[in-house]
């Protein structure tokens, strides 16, 4: 009897249940959104470029040596003007970021004592959490004067002994490519260093021990074993940082200047592609004017650049992996590594010459010390940059901060010193709210589907689709936010203007949601991946369905990490400036918003307007706003860090 009663409940465990099916469909629907964003981006770019090239010939676009879209007569659209500036600024930034980042990454992974790593890592990585507008402000108002007043006379002094005329001809513009490149580079160091550190740390310990057991010094192990093994990570880091650097907008705009002239001297003002997009958007050109379309044409070039870089990065990595594991086609030549820093100890061959060995290992060891010295200098440079910047903002801004600064409306007083930031703060909070409402369910849902369902389907296509979506999302994370701003203009401000009513909080928030969506998906997926499979198996073993395992076991376990990913995304959104400028954040709004269909101000955009003002009192207000913004971000990041460390304790248990 009991057996027959039990039968139906067993039988009902058929392949599908309603909940299971709807969970799959719903999450699957959310997972399509990133693909739709890619399609929308491509669509918008193609559409606007098509219209643009109706008016401007392809040849002129690539060959003209002037960029003058604002002229009524003799308009010229020579993209090479912007490309050259971008390459100069980006090149300087790469020259700073790549060597510093690689050296610091290696040092933190292999050499640094654990206390130093504990201190240095968060300090270095906090640079990535600083909104780029803050860095731009610092570059423009603090570093450029130092270059002009301290470094330039020095360089002149040195050069005048060689060539007096050339030395005299040197001068530094108040906005210049050099300063923008330097600061973009310094700000990008943590991107390189953390990826390199991760790559090096992931090389199995037994390879290190094997090399050490042969009598290698740390440096020899590093050069011959660890770096070759970690090469995919290093190359990936360089390419990723290149695409970031070329798309960097706020530092380039504020510190690099807006002059669209073909020039090669980084001491002069030069507008990168991203900076042009921002400056042109600020002028809010009429929709459908040629100036408006030129923004998209430049955007398309920038978008393509990041896409190509990212794809090249993915391919290089894949090819390298393939080579490292390929069975037949290995082209390692016997003499391959001969040229790499093997110190000359030719006279010593075999064991038994003990005095010789001691001397030799002294020479060989010196490489370790030289490297560590360089790394400490690199680390100190980045830390000094960070401290200088924060101290500078604090010193300039702290006197301004009081209750009325936080609560007054900007326009309630004409006196710059009495302006308040209530409207930008409230604007930013509204934007955050809207962005979270859109992005969190979508991002988490899509991540759950992509991580828990899609790769586990037993269809032949599911793995391929999964791989394609992986590439799409990695491309989305690499797209500069100013490009998302353009997408927002076209999609939310224009196409959906009946719903969003134009340049409103709703449009801005939705755009921010698009900016943070890929970050959220990546963070959530890695949180889900950290859940041990044994927990999932335990769930299935007690008869749970997939959706039950996901929602009762996997997601609750990963919850703290997911929340911490959400907080970090929010702090990215909070510091986001470029996309909001493109959408049309206002410099003045005389009221606090009370619904999403109003014009808005935002804290980082306010900093931008204040920083670029010529009035020192207003610039100080900018510093004060930076302190407020940095304070909010600090709290966010601390909470996220706390959640993550709690999570890691849980996983140890």
């Amino acid at each position, binding site marked *: 009897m009991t057996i027959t009663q039990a039968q139906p409940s067993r039988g009902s465990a058929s392949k599908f249940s309603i909940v299971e099916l709807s969970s799959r469909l719903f999450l699957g629907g959310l997972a399509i959104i990133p693909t739709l964003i890619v399609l929308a981006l491509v669509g918008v770019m193609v559409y606007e470029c098509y219209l643009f090239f109706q008016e401007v010939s392809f040849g002129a676009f690539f060959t003209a040596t002037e960029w003058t879209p604002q002229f009524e007569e003799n308009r010229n659209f020579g993209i090479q003007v912007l490309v050259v500036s971008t390459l100069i600024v980006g090149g300087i930034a790469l020259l700073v970021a790549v060597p510093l980042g690689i050296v610091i990454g290696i040092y933190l992974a292999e050499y640094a*004592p*654990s206390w130093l790593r504990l201190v240095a890592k968060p300090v270095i990585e906090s640079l990535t959490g600083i909104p780029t507008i803050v860095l731009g402000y610092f570059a423009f108002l603090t570093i450029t004067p130092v270059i002009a007043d301290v470094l330039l006379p020095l360089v002149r002094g040195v050069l005048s002994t060689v060539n007096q005329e050339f030395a005299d001809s040197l001068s530094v513009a108040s906005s210049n490519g050099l300063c923008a490149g330097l600061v973009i580079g310094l700000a990008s160091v943590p991107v390189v260093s953390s990826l390199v550190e991760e790559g090096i740390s992931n090389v*199995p310990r*037994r*390879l*290190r*021990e*094997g*090399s*050490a*057991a*042969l*009598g*290698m*010094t740390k440096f*020899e192990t590093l050069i*011959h*074993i660890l770096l*070759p*093994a970690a090469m995919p990570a290093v190359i990936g880091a360089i390419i990723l940082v290149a695409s970031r650097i070329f798309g960097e907008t706020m530092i380039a705009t504020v510190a690099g200047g807006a002059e669209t002239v073909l020039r090669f001297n980084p001491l002069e003002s030069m507008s990168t592609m991203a900076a042009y997009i921002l400056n042109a958007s600020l002028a809010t050109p009429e929709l459908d004017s040629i100036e408006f379309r030129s923004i998209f044409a430049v955007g398309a070039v920038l978008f393509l650049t990041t896409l190509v870089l990212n794809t090249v990065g993915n391919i290089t990595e894949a090819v390298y992996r393939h080579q*490292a*594991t*390929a*069975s*037949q086609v*290995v082209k*390692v*030549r*016997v*003499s*391959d*590594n*001969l040229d790499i820093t*093997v110190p*000359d*100890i*030719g*006279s*010593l*061959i*075999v*064991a038994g010459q*003990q005095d010789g*060995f*001691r001397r*030799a*290992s*002294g020479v*060989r*060891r010196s490489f370790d010390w030289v490297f560590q010295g360089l790394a400490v200098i690199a680390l100190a440079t980045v830390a000094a940059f960070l401290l200088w910047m924060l101290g500078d903002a604090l010193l300039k801004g702290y006197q301004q901060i009081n209750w009325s600064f936080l609560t007054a409306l900007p326009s309630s007083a004409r006196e710059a010193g009495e302006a308040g930031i209530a409207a930008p703060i409230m604007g930013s909070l509204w934007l955050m709210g809207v962005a979270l409402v859109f992005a969190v369910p979508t991002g988490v849902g899509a991540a759950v589907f992509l991580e828990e369902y899609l790769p586990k389907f037993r269809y032949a296509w599911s793995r391929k689709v999964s791989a394609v979506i992986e590439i799409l999302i990695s491309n989305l994370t690499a797209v500069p936010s100013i490009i998302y701003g353009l997408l927002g203009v076209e999609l939310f401000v224009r196409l959906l203007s009946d719903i969003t009513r134009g340049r409103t909080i709703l449009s801005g928030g939705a755009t921010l949601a698009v900016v943070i969506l890929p970050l959220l998906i990546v963070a959530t997926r890695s949180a889900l991946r950290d859940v041990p499979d044994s927990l999932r198996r335990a769930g299935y073993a007690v008869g749970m369905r997939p959706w039950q395992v996901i929602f009762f076991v996997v997601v609750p376990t990963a919850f703290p990490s997911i929340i911490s990913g959400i907080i970090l995304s929010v702090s990215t959104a909070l510091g986001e400036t470029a996309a909001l400028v493109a959408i049309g954040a206002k410099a003045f709004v005389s009221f606090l918003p009370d619904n999403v269909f109003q014009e808005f101000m935002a804290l980082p955009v306010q900093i931008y307007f204040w920083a670029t003002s010529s009035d020192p009192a207003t610039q100080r207000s900018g510093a004060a706003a930076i302190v407020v913004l940095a304070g909010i971000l600090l709290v966010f990041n601390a909470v996220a860090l706390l959640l993550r460390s709690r999570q890691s304790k849980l996983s140890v248990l």
Partner: protein
Amino acid sequence: MELAQDQLGTQVKAQVKNFSFFYGSNKAIKDVDLEVLDCKVTSMIGPSGCGKTTLLRCFNRMHDLYPGTRYEGEILLESQNLLSLDPIEVRMRIGMVFQKPNPFPKSIFENIAYGLRIRGVKDKGVINERVERALRDAAIWDEVKDRLKDMAFNLSGGQQQRLCIARALATDPEILLFDEPTSALDPIATASIEELVIGLKGKVTILIVTHNMQQAVRISDYTAFMYLGELVEFDRTDVIFNNAAQQRTREYVSGQFG
């Protein structure tokens, strides 16, 4: 522990004297005295956590790679205390083979040549010749001679382990340390490694940690039994396994604990 008279004529290669080792404040090796005889195979046995691998890794100063470790006492290599030498120098003289095969992500040839190059051997002819000799000594030459430029990862586990032995042999070590070299291998690969170790007797001093008592019987001349960080007994292998002096040794080798 002093050995009986029967090894007169064989030299002492290394001598551990009143030696202790600490992980932080935890004394992992407790006041050990041990003699390692030249060109013999000495095995170290004992239950998990008895400190045999820890002691082995003291011989080539592997612990120096990690913070918070400390040595006390002496390990004499011939007449020098290797604890006061530069660890790099020690490792140039004492080779090691690990529990899991760990070939470098390089070609088979480069895996062997790497150690030679770092020792300053530049002459291609010399390198080629010594790579071949090492591969022959490690009984893997015939299997790999036609594909020296293949990645080492493509070898089977047993071949990889023999490659690692060849890598260690190529640099003419004075002592070769084996840390459970067959624990990750199947029985056939294990047999080939054991054969190889037996074949190396008389050429190089070997110190081997093993979990497998039959293996110790098969390949070693002398055996040290360790328990809880102490050296309980050290003697000829046949004595340890047939006629041990200590009660604990007899219980362990007869399988009553551990």
